[in-house]
């Protein structure tokens, strides 16, 4: 890659990124724009009457926020030479669990609680988007539309930050473009359009078990959020959706994971991953690297998976036996449990709300059933691995520190072993931050992937035993 200097201003102040110094006058001006937009939005939330759904309001406030943040980031990173600039991260209150991090954590968590349990309280916010929602989806905006909009906006703005921060690294550029594309196109615009055409949205990038309803017996999918509604059964498009879901969940997951590892989904396509890789990037260093956390992770993530598999089987059996097993309320029970504990509490409140406290991948690491399945394939049936470059590791710890999944990458690298871990989402940041060029994400041949005798079976036995000591 060429390393053209992108530089704004003179050689002073020292060329370090926005994390490590006080903002310049220009940066302060951009921050003021963000502030103005945020004040307007807050006002709209608390005093819905001020803006109503005036057509100029949303473009103005979100425009201010977007232009201000991109401008701030642009001028901030413009002071750096292209390369890894994690300067000052652990001196920062926001990025190192200081007071600011707690404030941010509480704010985001509160937002999720309101969103899930008191969505109507956000009316002042979502009515702003009414004109846009009408155009896109043909129906008025609700709190879920507002959520999707803000989510996508964050992915795009912080995706821009990734472009600036990793402008020397093509893997990061292409990967970031990919998550931005999938979030904007397939998780926001297309479902909106589908809703307009078919009165029913559909997400091509989510499958069972992350979206279990896509593979449940139709009759049991009820109410709001039950995507393949009953009336679809006779519909050609509906049938296509069902087949798509089945092919993705049962076919694409093993096949693509065999070739590329779980990254084809987790850090290139998935929307949760998309937010983690963009908005979550400033917090990736906060993931817990201890063996204890790893132990907990294996129980919790596989626990969620087992729960969903059992429930899916149960519902199908129930369906086949004429719904005698659970009664017709069985599915509702499932939805309530799953919705409350997994989707709301885990993936939302903790998963995103705790970014500033526990890092960006809490849900992906401890809870996501899709990640669990992809992980099992990646660990035992995949050509993907992170190769360690001979004896070059100096045990510095940058790789482990910046692994958002809390993998102690160094513990493998310093022994000269490849990293073949179920949880690795293939973000490539460990390889990017390594100052000695030790790590490389590769889709190699299957043989020679594991250390020891190289057999997946032995690797499986090792995995059950836990990690060898000394």
């Amino acid at each position, binding site marked *: 890659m060429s390393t053209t200097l992108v530089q704004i201003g003179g050689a*002073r102040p020292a060329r370090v990124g926005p994390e490590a110094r006080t903002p310049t006058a220009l940066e302060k001006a951009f921050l003021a724009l963000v502030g103005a937009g945020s004040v307007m939005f807050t006002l709209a939330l608390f005093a819905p009457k001020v803006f109503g759904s005036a057509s100029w309001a949303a473009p103005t406030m979100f425009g201010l926020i977007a232009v201000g943040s991109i401008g701030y980031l642009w001028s901030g990173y413009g002071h750096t030479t292209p*390369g890894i600039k994690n300067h000052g991260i*652990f001196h920062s209150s926001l990025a190192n669990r200081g007071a600011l991090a707690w404030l941010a954590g509480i704010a985001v968590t509160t937002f999720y609680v309101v969103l899930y349990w008191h969505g109507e309280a956000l009316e002042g916010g979502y009515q702003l988007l009414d004109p846009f929602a009408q155009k896109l989806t043909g129906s008025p905006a609700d709190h879920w539309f507002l959520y999707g909009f803000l989510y996508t906006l964050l992915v795009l703005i912080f995706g821009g930050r990734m472009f600036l921060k990793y402008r020397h690294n093509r893997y990061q550029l292409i990967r970031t473009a990919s998550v931005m594309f999938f979030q904007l196109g397939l998780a926001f615009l297309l479902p909106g359009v589908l809703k307009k055409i078919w009165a029913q949205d559909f997400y091509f990038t989510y499958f069972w078990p992350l979206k279990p309803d896509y593979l449940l017996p139709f009759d049991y999918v009820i109410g709001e959020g039950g995507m393949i509604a009953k009336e679809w059964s006779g519909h050609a498009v509906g049938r296509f959706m069902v087949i798509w879901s089945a092919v993705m969940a049962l076919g694409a997951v093993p096949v693509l994971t065999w070739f590329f590892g779980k990254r084809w989904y987790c850090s290139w396509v998935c929307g949760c991953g998309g937010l983690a890789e963009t908005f979550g990037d400033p917090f990736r260093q906060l993931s817990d690297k201890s063996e204890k956390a790893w132990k907990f992770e294996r129980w919790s993530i596989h626990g969620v998976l087992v729960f969903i598999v059992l429930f899916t089987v149960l519902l199908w059996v129930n369906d086949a036996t004429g719904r005698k097993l659970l009664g017709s309320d069985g599915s509702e029970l499932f939805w309530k449990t799953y919705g409350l504990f997994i989707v709301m509490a885990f993936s939302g409140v903790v998963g995103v709300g705790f970014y500033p406290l526990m890092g960006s991948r809490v849900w992906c690491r401890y809870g996501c059933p899709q990640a669990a399945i992809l992980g099992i394939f990646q660990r035992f049936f995949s050509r993907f691995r992170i190769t360690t470059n001979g004896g070059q590791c*100096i*045990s*510095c*710890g940058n790789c482990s520190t910046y692994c958002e999944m809390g993998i102690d990458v160094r513990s493998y690298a310093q022994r000269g072993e490849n990293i073949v871990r179920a949880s690795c989402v293939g973000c490539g940041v460990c*390889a990017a931050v390594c100052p000695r*060029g030790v790590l490389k994400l590769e889709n190699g041949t299957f043989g020679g992937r594991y250390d020891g005798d190289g057999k997946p079976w032995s690797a499986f036995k090792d995995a059950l035993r836990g990690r060898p000591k000394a």
Partner: protein
Amino acid sequence: MHVAIVGNGIAGVTAARHLRKLDSSVRITLISGETDHHWSRPALMYVYMGHMRWEDVKPYEDHFWPRNRIDLVRRWVTSIDVEGRQLHLDGARTIPFDKLLLAVGSKPNKFGWPGQDLRGVSGMVSLQDLQAIEAASVGLKHAAIVGGGLIGVELAEMFHTRGIDVTFLVREHAYWNHVLPAEEGDIVGEVIRAEGIDLRLETELTEIVDDGTGQVGAIVDSKGDRVEVGFVGLTAGVRPNLTVCAGSPIATDRGILVDRTLVTNVEGIYAAGDCAQVKTPEGHRDLIQAVWYTGRMMGEVAARNLLGASDEYDSGTWFNSAKFFDLEYQVYGYVPSAMAHHQLPSLAWISPDRRHACRLVETEDGKLSGISVLGIRMRHRVCERWIEEGRDLAYVLAHLREAMFDPEFYRRWDRDIVAALSGKVAA
């Protein structure tokens, strides 16, 4: 049996780990005055720069040591009683041993500069140095760094991230001239200057000036220039730490003298890592190897020999790596420096923007001697194999792709290198 190890750096810790791996009953005591736990010395700069916290540069969690029954002692060893087989520690403590490994590392060179003991003058090797540099940075406007090696450029980057101006004195006429070939040294010099560092080549330190309070106020260089600075970093290389051997019969020269099995002149006492000076060295190698991986390899050999083997230390084909600000550097095999007495034929390629380079060095009989790269990553095992198999440069160029280790989607520099160099090599 009780093995005492002095020094919890990579050499001492690798020895301790391997002792435990090989023998579940041996008693192991690991002593260091510097820190409670092993840490990665090369990561010192990242703590200062805020990339990591102190706990992040410790390669093992604290429970690793009790779990593996390695007893840790945080004390300085003051002397070794060879006859009585015991160590004297500060605080009047003694530790008896059956066998002893000295892995006491290096200390920074000081060349008797006037003012070198003033407040605000420090090397950059230990945790204590890091703390001193951290304390000196408060309110610091301008620092001087003396000595153009790896540690110097790291210290320059550290200050740079805090907006502290740096004057960097290098005695040679290019940066790191006694390791890098001339062109590569020039490129690194350009990188340093492009960051706004005041790099002064062919300039030595003459004097460190007292500001009247026992604190550094300025430096004077060999060209007569005076620069007002609040801190002076001494990074003119390191030398083996021999303090602990003083007054004992353990033989030393520049380092602690050991034979190829890493045993000193005293039976049962070994030395490994930066502090060891291995007799009868091979080929082009230095007598003293002060890098991370050689410490690790020596630690492994020492562990086996402490348990009764007599394996010889062989570090294999040389390699190393470094980073100068954003520019990564790797070397495999022997690539003569600009200052080497005996030069070898070589082919070099430098990208138009001068941020990527590759050099292939040939031995007199036409075999690959070494490869070095800037701004490109290469595969250790492939380069090593080519050198050991005695491949010629035509073979290397024909297979260069196998050695590329850059991340996916990166520009394929091997194509540029092959296009530029293959015309210059006899088929």
